[in-house]
C-alpha cells in the first residue's frame, strides 16, 4: 500500500537548462569520426570532394579559357540585339523595378532580423572558398599567395567579430533592411573600384538612389495610409509595371490611329456600354431570367467568331460572357453589382488597351528582335507565370467540377497538353497557329511564343492546384454548405485559398521549371539568354574564348535565379504558416 501523496505548492515554471556549445574538436569527432567506418567514409568522400573542386578549378584557371568573353558580351547577355542607342529605355525599366522594390521593402517591412553570427558565417564561407582556391588552383604562384592571404585575413576577421560579439551574436538583432542596404552599397563600391572601363557605374548608382527614394516614400506612406490599401496599391503597381515596361517603355509603340478610331472604337464603345447594361440587368434578375440572358451572351461569344469583326471585339464579348456568368453569384447585392461593374470597366479597358498597343508598330529602329537576352527571358517567364496562373486555376476548378461539360473540357485540355513536348507546343505556337487566326490579326512572335509557354504551363499548374483541392477535408465543404454558401462562394472563399496555400512548394517547382524552360524558345528563333550564350562566340568579330565558357556562365546565371526562387518560396511558406495553421 502506498500512502496518498499531495503536492502542497505547485511549482512555477523554470527556465530551460543552458545549452552548451560543443567545441570544434568535439563536433568533428562526433559528426565525422564517430566510428571507424564513418571515419573511412569521411576520408574517402573528403578526398573525392577535394578532387572534384580541383577539377573545376583547373577548368576555370586553364590558360586556354578566356573568361573575358563574358564581361565583353555583358550587354548582349542582358538585352540581346536591343538597339544600343536606346539602352536608356532598359535602364528606365530597371529603375521602375528598383523603385517598386524599395517601396515594397518599406510597405511589407521584412520583419526578419538576422544575427551577426549568420552574417559572419556567410563571409566565412567566402573565406573558405578563397582558401580552397589558393591551395588547389593551378594558377600562378603570386596569384595563389594573394588569394590565400585574402582568405586568411577574411577568416580571421570573421572569427574576431564572432569572439568580440560573443554570445550576443546568437540574438537576432540585425535588421534585414540594413543587410540589404549594405549589400547594395558594397556592390556599388566594388563596381566603382574595379579597374575596368564600365558604362554601368552611373546608371546603377542612379538605380540605387531611385530605390532609396522608393523606400523613403514607402516609409512616409506607411505612417499615413491604411496598410491594407497600401499593399493592394503596391501589388497593383507591380502588375501594371510589366505591361508598362515591355509594351511602352521598351517598345515605344506608334499607334495606327486611323484603324483604331475607324474600325475598332465603335466596337469597343458598343460592347463596353452593352456590358454595363447586361451586367446591371442580370444582377437585378431572378434566376430564370439571369439564366436566359447568360445563355444568350454565351451564344453571342461563340457566334462572334463566325463573323468578320475585329479580334478585340471577340475578346471583349468572351470576357463579358465570363463576367456575366459570375454576376448571379457575386453581383446580387447592390455593393456586389457595383463591384461587378467596376470589374467589367477595368477588364474591358485593359483588354482593348492590350489590343490597341499590341497592334501598334514600334518607334525603334528594329522591328522583331528588339527583345533579347535576359530581358526576353524575364519577359517570357514573368508573363507566362502571370497569365498561366488564372488559366491553371480555372482548369483545376473545371476538372473538379460536377458539371460534365467543364470536366470533359478541362480534362481533355490538360491530358492533351501534358502529352505533348514543350518544344512541339512552341513550334506550333510560333509557326502553326497563324493558320487558325484571321489574316488581319498577326501577333508578334514574342507574343505567340509567350502564349505557347502559358498554355503549356497552365496545364501543369492545373494539376498542382487540383492536388491542393483534393487535400481539403470534406468537413470544410460541409461547413461551408451548412452556412448556406453557393458552390462558387465555397470555392472562392474556402477551398481555393486553402488549396493554393497547400501547394506552394509544388507551384514554386513549376515556376522554376518554367523559368528554365524559357531557354527552349531559342530553338524557334527568339534570342533569349541561352541563345546568346550559344551564339556570341561565332558571331563576334575577333575570336575570344569558346562556347564552353559561355554555356557555363549561362548555367550559373540560371542557377542563381532558381536558387533564389526556392529560397523565396521557403520564406513565403513560413510567412503563411503552411503546416502550422
Amino acid at each position, binding site marked *: 500500500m502506498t500512502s496518498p501523496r499531495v503536492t502542497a505548492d505547485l511549482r512555477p515554471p523554470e527556465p530551460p537548462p543552458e545549452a552548451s556549445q560543443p567545441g570544434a574538436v568535439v563536433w568533428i569527432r562526433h559528426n565525422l569520426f564517430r566510428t571507424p567506418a564513418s571515419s573511412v567514409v569521411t576520408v574517402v568522400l573528403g578526398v573525392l570532394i577535394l578532387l572534384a573542386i580541383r577539377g573545376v578549378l583547373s577548368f576555370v584557371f586553364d590558360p586556354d579559357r578566356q573568361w573575358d568573353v563574358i564581361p565583353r558580351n555583358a550587354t548582349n547577355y542582358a538585352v540581346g540585339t536591343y538597339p544600343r542607342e536606346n539602352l536608356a529605355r532598359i535602364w528606365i525599366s530597371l529603375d521602375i523595378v528598383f523603385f517598386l522594390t524599395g517601396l515594397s521593402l518599406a510597405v511589407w517591412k521584412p520583419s526578419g532580423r538576422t544575427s551577426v553570427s549568420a552574417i559572419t558565417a556567410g563571409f566565412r564561407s567566402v573565406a573558405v572558398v578563397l582558401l580552397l582556391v589558393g591551395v588547389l588552383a593551378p594558377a600562378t604562384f603570386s596569384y595563389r599567395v594573394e588569394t590565400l592571404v585574402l582568405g586568411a585575413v577574411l577568416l580571421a576577421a570573421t572569427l574576431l567579430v564572432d569572439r568580440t560579439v560573443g554570445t550576443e551574436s546568437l540574438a537576432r538583432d540585425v535588421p534585414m533592411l540594413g543587410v540589404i542596404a549594405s549589400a547594395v552599397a558594397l556592390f556599388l563600391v566594388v563596381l566603382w573600384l574595379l579597374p575596368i572601363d564600365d558604362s554601368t557605374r552611373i546608371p546603377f548608382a542612379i538605380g540605387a538612389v531611385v530605390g532609396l527614394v522608393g523606400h523613403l516614400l514607402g516609409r512616409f506612406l506607411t505612417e499615413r495610409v491604411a496598410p491594407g490599401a497600401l499593399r493592394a496599391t503596391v501589388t497593383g503597381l507591380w502588375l501594371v509595371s510589366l505591361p508598362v515596361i515591355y509594351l511602352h517603355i521598351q517598345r515605344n509603340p506608334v499607334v495606327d490611329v486611323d484603324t483604331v478610331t475607324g474600325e475598332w472604337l465603335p466596337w469597343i464603345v458598343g460592347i463596353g456600354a452593352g456590358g454595363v447594361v447586361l451586367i446591371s440587368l442580370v444582377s437585378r434578375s431572378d434566376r430564370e431570367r439571369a439564366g436566359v440572358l447568360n445563355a444568350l451572351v454565351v451564344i453571342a461569344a461563340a457566334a462572334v467568331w463566325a463573323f468578320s469583326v475585329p479580334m478585340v471585339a471577340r475578346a471583349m464579348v468572351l470576357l463579358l460572357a465570363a463576367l456575366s456568368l459570375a454576376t448571379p453569384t457575386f453581383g446580387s447585392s447592390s455593393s456586389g453589382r457595383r463591384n461587378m461593374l467596376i470589374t467589367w470597366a477595368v477588364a474591358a479597358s485593359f483588354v482593348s488597351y492590350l489590343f490597341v498597343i499590341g497592334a501598334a508598330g514600334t518607334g525603334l529602329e528594329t522591328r522583331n528582335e528588339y527583345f533579347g537576352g535576359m530581358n526576353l527571358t524575364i519577359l517570357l517567364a514573368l508573363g507566362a507565370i502571370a497569365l498561366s496562373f488564372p488559366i491553371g486555376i480555372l482548369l483545376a476548378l473545371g476538372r473538379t467540377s460536377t458539371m460534365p461539360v467543364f470536366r470533359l473540357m478541362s480534362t481533355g485540355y490538360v491530358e492533351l497538353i501534358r502529352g505533348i513536348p514543350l518544344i512541339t507546343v512552341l513550334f506550333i505556337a510560333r509557326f502553326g497557329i497563324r493558320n487558325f487566326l484571321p489574316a488581319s490579326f498577326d501577333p508578334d512572335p514574342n507574343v505567340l511564343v509567350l502564349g505557347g509557354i502559358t498554355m503549356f504551363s497552365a496545364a501543369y499548374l492545373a494539376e498542382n492546384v487540383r492536388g491542393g483541392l483534393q487535400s481539403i477535408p470534406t*468537413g470544410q465543404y*460541409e*461547413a461551408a454548405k*451548412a*452556412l448556406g454558401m453557393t458552390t462558387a462562394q465555397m470555392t472562392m472563399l474556402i477551398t481555393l485559398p*486553402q488549396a493554393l496555400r497547400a501547394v506552394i512548394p509544388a507551384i514554386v517547382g513549376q515556376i522554376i521549371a518554367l523559368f528554365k524552360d524559357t531557354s527552349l524558345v531559342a530553338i524557334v528563333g527568339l534570342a533569349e539568354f541561352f541563345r546568346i550564350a550559344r551564339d556570341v562566340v561565332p558571331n563576334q568579330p575577333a575570336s575570344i574564348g569558346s562556347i564552353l565558357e559561355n554555356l557555363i556562365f549561362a548555367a550559373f546565371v540560371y542557377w542563381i535565379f532558381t536558387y533564389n526562387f526556392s529560397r523565396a518560396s521557403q520564406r513565403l511558406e513560413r510567412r503563411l504558416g503552411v503546416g*502550422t495553421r
Partner: protein
Amino acid sequence: MSVKGNKDMIVCDDVKKWFGEFQALRGITTTIGEGEVVVIIGPSGSGKSTWIRCINRLEVHQEGRIVVDGIELSSDVRNIEKIRSEVGMVFQSFNLFPHLTVLQNITLAQTWVRKRPKRESEEKAMSLLERVGIPEQAAKFPGQLSGGQQQRVALARSLAMDPRIMLFDEPTSALDPEMIKEVLDAMKELANSGMTMLVVTHEMGFAREVADRVIFMDQGQIVEEGTPEHFFTDPQHDRTKLFLSQIL
C-alpha cells in the same frame, strides 16, 4: 408529437436512406415543434448523424418527405440554400476555416450569404463571441485555440446567420472532460433562449437537464421517444433498457 409551441419546425415522414446496399434510415417519422430541444441518443451506426444531416441536405434522403419550416426538401437548388441558411449546424470536428481568423470565420457567411454590411457583421460576431465567452480570441487563428474554444467559435459562426433551427452532430465527442462543460454550458444557454435544437450526443446529463424530448434510435429507426423522466426512470423497450444500462 410536438411538445412546445404551436408551429411544426421539422416534419419527417417515413424518411429512408441507403448507402449502396446498406439501409441507414429505415423510415423515420416524427415532428419537432418550434422551440423544442430534442436529444437523439443511440449506439454508433444507428443512423443518428445521417438523419440530422438529411435535414440540411448534407445527405440526400431517397424516400419519404422532410419539411423544414414549411419548405419541403427537394432537389431544387434554391430550396436547399434557403433552408441551409435557416438551419445552423455544429460538427463533431468543428470544421472551422483554418485560413481565416476567428472573427473572419464568423463574419464570412454573414457578408456573403446574408449580404450584411461589414461593420454590422463584425458587431454581430463580437457580441456572439462575448455570449460564448471568448471575445479576446477574435484575432487568433483556429489552430491557436483549444478544442472547446474552437467548438464555441463554431457555435457562434452558426448563430451569426440567425438560424431558426440548430443541429448538433456530437458536438462534444472530440473534447476532453474539462472542455465538454464549457461547450454544454453555451448550448444550455441557447436552449433556454428558445432555439429549436436537434442534438446528437452521448451526454446524458445534458439530455436529462435540457431536453424536452429524447429519441432513442437503433438500426436506422426510432425505437423509443419520450420525456427525459420517462427515459431515465421508466424505459419500455428492451433495447433501450440495454443501451441505458451500458452507458449510465
